[in-house]
C-alpha cells in the first residue's frame, strides 16, 4: 500500500491544503479579531487596505518580514532561534487528525476529506497540544530577560493546571462516542450533538481551551501590565510573527476540535438533517451524480468562525484573572467539576446499558447541570466568605 505513489501524492496534497488553510486562516483571523473587537468597542477597525481592510493581513506580513530582527546580547542563540519553530510546528501538525468532510470520488479513487483517521486521534491531539508549551518555555528562558522568563514559567504552570480539566472533558466525549477516533466521534453525533448530552463538559472544555491557548481572560503569560509581552518580549520581526502565527493557529485548531468533539464536527446542523443541505444528500444532474461532500468543510468553517467569535467576544468583555485565582480556579473548581462530569457520564452510559433504559442516558445532562449549579453556589459561598473576611 505504501508503495502506491498516488496515495503519497494524495496525502501530500491534503497536507498542503491543511497547511494552506491554517496559514490563510491565521491571516484572516487577525483581521476578523480586529474587526470584531473594533465593532464591540464602537470603532470600525482596519478598513483602509483593500475593501473592508481585507488586504490588511498582507500589509502586516510585509511589514513583519522587513522588520529588523534583534537578538538580546546574552541570549542562548540556538534555543532563541528554534523556540518559535518549536511553538509553530505543533500548532500546524495538530490539525492532521481533524476530519473536515466525508469523501468524494475523483480520478477513479475515493478521496477522503481528512488527513489521517488514527484510532487514537484524541490522544494525538492531547499530546501535541501539550508539546506546544515547550516552545513558549524555551523562548522565555533563552531570551535572557526576567519578564520573558516569568511569562514562560506562568505559561507552563497554567497549561499543566488546565490540561487536566481539558483531558477530562476529552474523556467525556470519548465515553459518549465509545471511540477515540475523531471520525467516530463525529459519526456518533449524527443523532444528537454532545453539547446537548454534556453541556457542562462543553463549558469546561471551552474554559480549559481558553487557558490552553493563552487567550483572555487567561492570557497571564503575556500580561502586558506585568510582563510587557511575556515570553515573546525579546522577539521581533518574523520570529515574533511565528509566535503570533502559532497562537492564532492554535485558536483555529482548538475551535475545530471543540466543533468536532461537542458540536457535530463537519456534520450539518440538526435542523438541516435529511434536507438538501445535508452532507449525505446526493443528487443527479444529467450524467453527474453528486454528493454534498463539499458542505462538510463549509459547516466546519462556519462552526469554527462562530466559536472564534466566542473567543473574541470573551476577550472583549472579561478582564484578566489574577494569577493565584487562575491557579485556584483550575485546581479547586475545574478539576473536581470535570472529574464529577466524567463520573456522571460514565455512570449514565453504564446504567443505560445495564438496565436497557434511555432514561439513565438522558439523566446525564440534567445531573451534570445540577452539579454545575452546585459548583456555582459553592463559588458564590467562597466569594461571600472572602468578602466577609475582608470587611
Amino acid at each position, binding site marked *: 500500500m505504501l508503495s502506491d505513489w498516488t496515495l503519497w501524492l494524495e496525502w501530500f496534497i491534503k497536507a498542503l491544503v491543511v497547511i494552506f488553510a491554517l496559514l490563510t486562516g491565521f491571516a484572516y483571523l487577525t483581521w476578523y479579531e480586529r474587526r*470584531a473587537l*473594533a*465593532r*464591540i*468597542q*464602537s*470603532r*470600525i477597525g482596519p478598513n483602509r487596505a483593500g475593501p473592508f481592510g481585507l488586504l490588511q493581513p498582507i500589509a502586516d506580513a510585509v511589514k513583519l518580514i522587513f522588520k529588523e530582527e534583534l537578538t538580546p546580547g546574552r541570549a542562548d542563540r540556538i534555543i532563541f532561534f528554534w523556540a518559535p519553530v518549536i511553538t509553530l510546528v505543533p500548532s500546524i501538525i495538530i490539525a492532521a487528525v481533524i476530519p473536515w468532510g466525508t469523501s468524494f470520488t475523483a480520478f477513479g479513487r475515493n478521496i477522503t476529506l481528512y488527513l489521517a483517521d488514527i484510532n487514537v486521534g484524541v490522544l494525538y491531539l492531547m499530546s501535541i497540544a501539550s508539546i506546544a508549551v515547550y516552545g513558549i518555555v524555551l523562548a522565555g528562558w533563552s531570551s535572557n530577560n526576567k519578564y520573558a522568563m516569568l511569562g514562560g514559567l506562568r505559561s507552563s504552570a497554567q497549561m499543566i493546571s488546565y490540561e487536566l480539566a481539558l483531558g477530562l472533558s476529552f474523556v467525556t466525549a470519548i465515553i459518549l462516542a465509545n471511540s477515540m477516533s475523531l471520525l467516530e466521534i463525529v459519526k456518533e453525533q449524527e443523532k444528537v450533538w454532545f453539547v446537548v448530552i454534556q453541556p457542562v463538559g462543553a463549558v469546561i472544555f471551552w474554559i480549559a481551551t481558553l487557558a490552553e491557548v493563552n487567550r483572555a481572560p487567561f492570557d497571564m503569560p503575556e500580561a502586558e501590565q506585568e510582563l510587557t509581552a511575556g515570553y515573546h518580549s525579546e522577539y521581533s520581526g518574523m520570529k515574533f510573527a511565528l509566535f503570533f502565527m502559532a497562537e492564532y493557529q492554535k485558536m483555529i485548531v482548538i475551535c475545530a476540535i471543540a466543533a468536532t468533539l461537542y458540536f457535530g464536527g463537519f456534520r450539518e446542523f440538526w435542523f438541516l438533517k435529511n434536507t438538501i443541505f445535508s452532507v449525505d444528500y446526493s443528487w443527479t444532474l444529467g450524467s453527474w451524480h453528486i454528493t454534498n461532500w463539499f458542505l462538510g468543510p463549509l459547516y466546519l468553517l462556519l462552526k469554527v468562525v462562530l466559536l472564534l467569535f466566542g473567543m473574541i*467576544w*470573551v476577550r*472583549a*468583555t*472579561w478582564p484578566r484573572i489574577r494569577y493565584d485565582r487562575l491557579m485556584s480556579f483550575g485546581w479547586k473548581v475545574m478539576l473536581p467539576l470535570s472529574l464529577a462530569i466524567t463520573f456522571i457520564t460514565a455512570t449514565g452510559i453504564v446504567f443505560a446499558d445495564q438496565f436497557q433504559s434511555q432514561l439513565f442516558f438522558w439523566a446525564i445532562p440534567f445531573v451534570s447541570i445540577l452539579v454545575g*449549579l452546585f459548583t*456555582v*453556589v459553592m*463559588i*458564590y459561598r467562597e*466569594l461571600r466568605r472572602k468578602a466577609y473576611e475582608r470587611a
Partner: protein
Amino acid sequence: MSVLDPVVELARGLWTTLKMMVEKPVTYQYPEQKREVRPRFRGRHVLKRYDNGLEKCIGCSLCAAACPADAIFVEAAENTDERRFSPGERYASTYEINMLRCIYCGYCEDACPTEAIVLGDNYELSFFDRRSAIYDKAMLLEPVQTPEMLTPQKVEPGKYNRRSVPEMKDPQD
C-alpha cells in the same frame, strides 16, 4: 444578591458588549471626514488683517516676549505712506514662528495688543526637516480677497498716523 451571581454577572458583561456591536461606530474617517474643531481650539497661528487689507500686526514683539518656548521671532520696520503695511507707526518686517518649539499655549494671542495673532483651526502640521518647521510671515498671514488689499499699500498721506490703530473690543469667545 443571589447565589447564581457568579454566572449572572459574567453573562451580563457579555450581553453588554454584544449590545455594543449593533451600535453605530463613533469613528471619524479622518483624512476624508474631518472633525469640526471647538471654537477656542488652538491650532496653527494666523496673522489677521483689517477689512481694508492692512495687517493688524504692528511689530511690537510682545508675543515674542510672552512666548514661554521662545518660538517667535519678530523684527519691526517703519511704515511710510508709500509703503504701508499696518495702520500704526511700525509693522513686522520679519515674523517667524518655529512650529517645532511652539507649545500652542496661546500666550501670544493674549499678549497681542491688536489681536493680530490668533491660533487658528489648522492642526495638520508636518515637516520633512527642521528648516521647514519655521513658518515665516508669508505663510502665517491671512490671505486677501482682492489684489488691491495686498500689503504694502500706497495710501494718501496723513490718513494714518501713530494713533490710527483701532481700539480693541472685548474678545468674543
